[in-house]
């Protein structure tokens, strides 16, 4: 078996931003992603009901350059005005070619 390192980028944001975020990460070079519905509380706001808007968590496996590019794009476009959290972790996968 041939495990190789990749980056997993996680973005937590308002569900209303979903389409824009997906578009952005695809432009950065991501080839797939997984979305879960979540709730949350942060410094700005609570997101527990449909009135307050739900949160989503987007996870995407990408190579390091793409991960950094996603972080840069997101931070430039959204960090100032929107409640959004993003982080990178390192994971190991098989079949790297699927993701890069």
């Amino acid at each position, binding site marked *: 078996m041939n495990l190789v390192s990749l980056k997993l980028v996680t973005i937590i944001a308002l569900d209303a931003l979903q389409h824009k975020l997906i578009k952005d990460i695809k432009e950065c070079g991501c080839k797939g992603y997984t979305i879960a519905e979540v709730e949350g509380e942060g410094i700005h706001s609570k997101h527990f*009901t449909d009135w*307050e808007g739900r949160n989503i968590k987007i996870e995407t496996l990408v190579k390091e350059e793409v991960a950094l590019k996603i972080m840069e794009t997101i931070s430039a476009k959204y960090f100032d005005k929107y409640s959004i959290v993003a982080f990178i972790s390192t994971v190991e996968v098989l079949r790297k070619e699927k993701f890069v």
Partner: protein
Amino acid sequence: MIETLFNSLSSPMVLAFVLGVFATIIRSDLKLPEGMYLGLTVYLLFAIGIKGGVKLTHTPFVDFYKSGIIAILMCLAIPIYAYHILKRLAGFDSINSAAMAAHFGSVSVVTFSQTLVHMETNNIPYEGFVSALLAIMEVPGIMMALYLAKRNQPGEQETLNSQQEILKELLTGKGFVLLIGGLLIGLASGDKGYEQVSPFFDAPFKGILCLFLLEVGLVTGRRLGDLKKVGLRLVLAAIFIPILNASIGIWLASFIGLNVGTATIFGVLCASASYIAAPAAVRIAIPEANPGYYLTAALAVAFPFNVTLGIPLYYYFATLLCQ
């Protein structure tokens, strides 16, 4: 007026709302399943749309167009004066004033539904085209308020959403699509078609509204805590503006000769604050605005005021002003 007030306060819908608020206050674990709010919203919007459409088939167009004009007029006027009242009299900043103005400029489907129930319970006749007014009045007020917000942030770097994009999002929003879609379906399928689906869209409507108001109560309860933080000026403004809107609305309605019931409903539409389209649009278009202000004003003040004291009050206004 006392009797309609009493009817209004003791209706199962209003009481369900109170139960919801109370449950939150005592920190009950009561909550409705996650999809239920969305499901109930879809039901209400579609049911109102389709029923309204069927009623429109019985309304001569000429009866309707004058109302349509004053409806649009009010939608454009409300955000402007509400913005200035909130900014100058109540002392909020431009951003938050515009955000709240967007809510008052649009309409609340639940308040509207509760008004129809009230009319039917008290046997007050009204025109069939009121649902069409509801649909007309959803979007313009929000657009006007967002325009005001933008004009007041001139130094802003280009935002994510141009005015046009937002308009597109509003017009494709579920609120507008379901109402207009429902209206057209009602128009096209007529009485014969409606007969088939009325056991689902008509008979249980009030009961489902009751459940929906329980949910609204639960959310409102959570907002009550914010009331202390935001202070009296928000509460006063969020009661004063609806009353003002309704008064102007009913006065205009009397001019074009609407009957008492229809004028009351139009007054309620003017008075009601949006809770579907406006919060969603504001969240995206003016993310700097504080939901502690706009959601609290719309949900924790204007909404309960309108469904309890408001409806009977506006009805009283209408009896004074209209034939």
